[in-house]
């Protein structure tokens, strides 16, 4: 069993359910908060949380994008600029708040996340799909890069004209290898999971201790209180 020892990463010391609750809290705050000041303050709180969990660079990137969206939106509305659409920046700055927590979610080890979510009333198939999706996304990006390189080498992406004149062929050359590779990885993943007993009908346990600690309770309480304050600003 892996306990909360001080030498393990901070993000591994919290429960997956806590992060899911934080995600719900961020969603509601982003939806209910009508004041830009309150919205901004909650974003700063989330940035501080990400910094505490040693995800500073990614947090800073999202915060930078958030500031850029708000500033651009202010310029758009002040000077009546309709392109790019002001709605884009409205949607973007509201989406960036839950995105902060999603960053935290992807940093939790998949084994821990699986056992945390297993304690929630979510159907196992849906839960497994979500977890595999979270872990599969970087692989897909990598595979897209590989397929793109292979297409370049074979001259399928030489000019924009080639792509525009034969869009269906270009799609076929990109999609087919992508699906083949993904299915191969999916089969390997499935075999690995079966060998490790995922289809066993018995109660499954984990190397990780799944229990809410004082740190989890503090995180949930403080985030909820700050969310309420920000919504009332």
């Amino acid at each position, binding site marked *: 069993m892996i306990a909360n020892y001080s030498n393990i990463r901070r993000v591994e010391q919290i429960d997956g359910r806590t992060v899911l609750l934080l995600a719900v809290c961020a969603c509601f705050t982003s939806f209910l908060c009508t004041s830009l000041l309150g919205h901004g303050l909650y974003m700063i709180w989330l940035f501080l949380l990400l910094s505490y969990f040693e995800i500073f660079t990614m947090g800073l990137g999202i915060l930078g994008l958030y500031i850029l969206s708000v500033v651009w939106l202010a310029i758009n509305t002040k000077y009546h600029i309709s392109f790019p659409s002001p709605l884009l920046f409205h949607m973007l700055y509201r989406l960036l708040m839950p995105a902060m927590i999603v960053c935290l979610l992807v940093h939790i080890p998949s084994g821990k996340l699986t056992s945390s979510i297993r304690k929630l009333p979510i159907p196992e198939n849906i839960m497994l*799909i979500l977890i595999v999706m979270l872990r599969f996304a970087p692989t897909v990006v990598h595979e897209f890069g590989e397929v793109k390189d292979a297409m370049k080498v074979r001259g399928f992406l030489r000019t924009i004209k080639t792509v525009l004149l034969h869009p269906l062929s270009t799609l076929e050359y990109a999609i087919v290898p992508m699906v083949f590779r993904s299915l191969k990885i999916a089969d390997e993943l499935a075999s690995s999971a079966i060998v490790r007993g995922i289809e066993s009908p018995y109660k499954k346990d984990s190397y990780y201790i799944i229990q809410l600690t004082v740190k989890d309770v503090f995180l949930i309480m403080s985030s909820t209180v700050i969310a309420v304050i920000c919504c009332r600003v």
Partner: protein
Amino acid sequence: MKETRGSKFSIRDVITVAAMLVINYMIAMVISAVTLPFSEMYLYGSAAIDGFLGAVFFLVAANRVNKHGLLLVWAVVYGLIQALMGYAFLLPYFLIVGVVTELSMIGKDTYRKPVRNMIGWALNSIGNFIGCAVPLWWAWDSYKNMALNSGFSQETLDMQFLMAIHPGLMLVGCVITGLLAVLGVLFGQRLLRRHFQKAGILE
């Protein structure tokens, strides 16, 4: 395997669906990012293009898994991701879309029948299209407040809003989305025959 199996998804099915969903969702995100600067294009085009491109991935999953509940899972996972990204109110909506699309697939071996897949996928894409409008309406309120405070006239704003939600235009959007989804299934079936069935990956 002649019948659409009604039993539980095996782990291989679950991972296949997850893999196809990831690719489909990533393509949808790229399409959204490209079309978002043009709000009308985002509303009327993104779901349609996604319906065309995503059809291949759906068909691969459908022909491989061939079990009832696939479209329901597809829509629910889509709704859960939207909920995680801030649109929690879209989850019940996508649950309804999933139930409706799943009802369209009732019968034997339906996930391996091109016409039934076409109907199911077109309904799913139309559901996505209507789902696209909801966040736009949500963002509209705060945009409207800010724009009015900055000197935009009410008439200009009303005109912009009408362009985004006019019932006639919404119907046109549904037709375009359904049509592209059908074309996507035709394109996908061609790829399935030419590559995947020939290679023995799909039956």
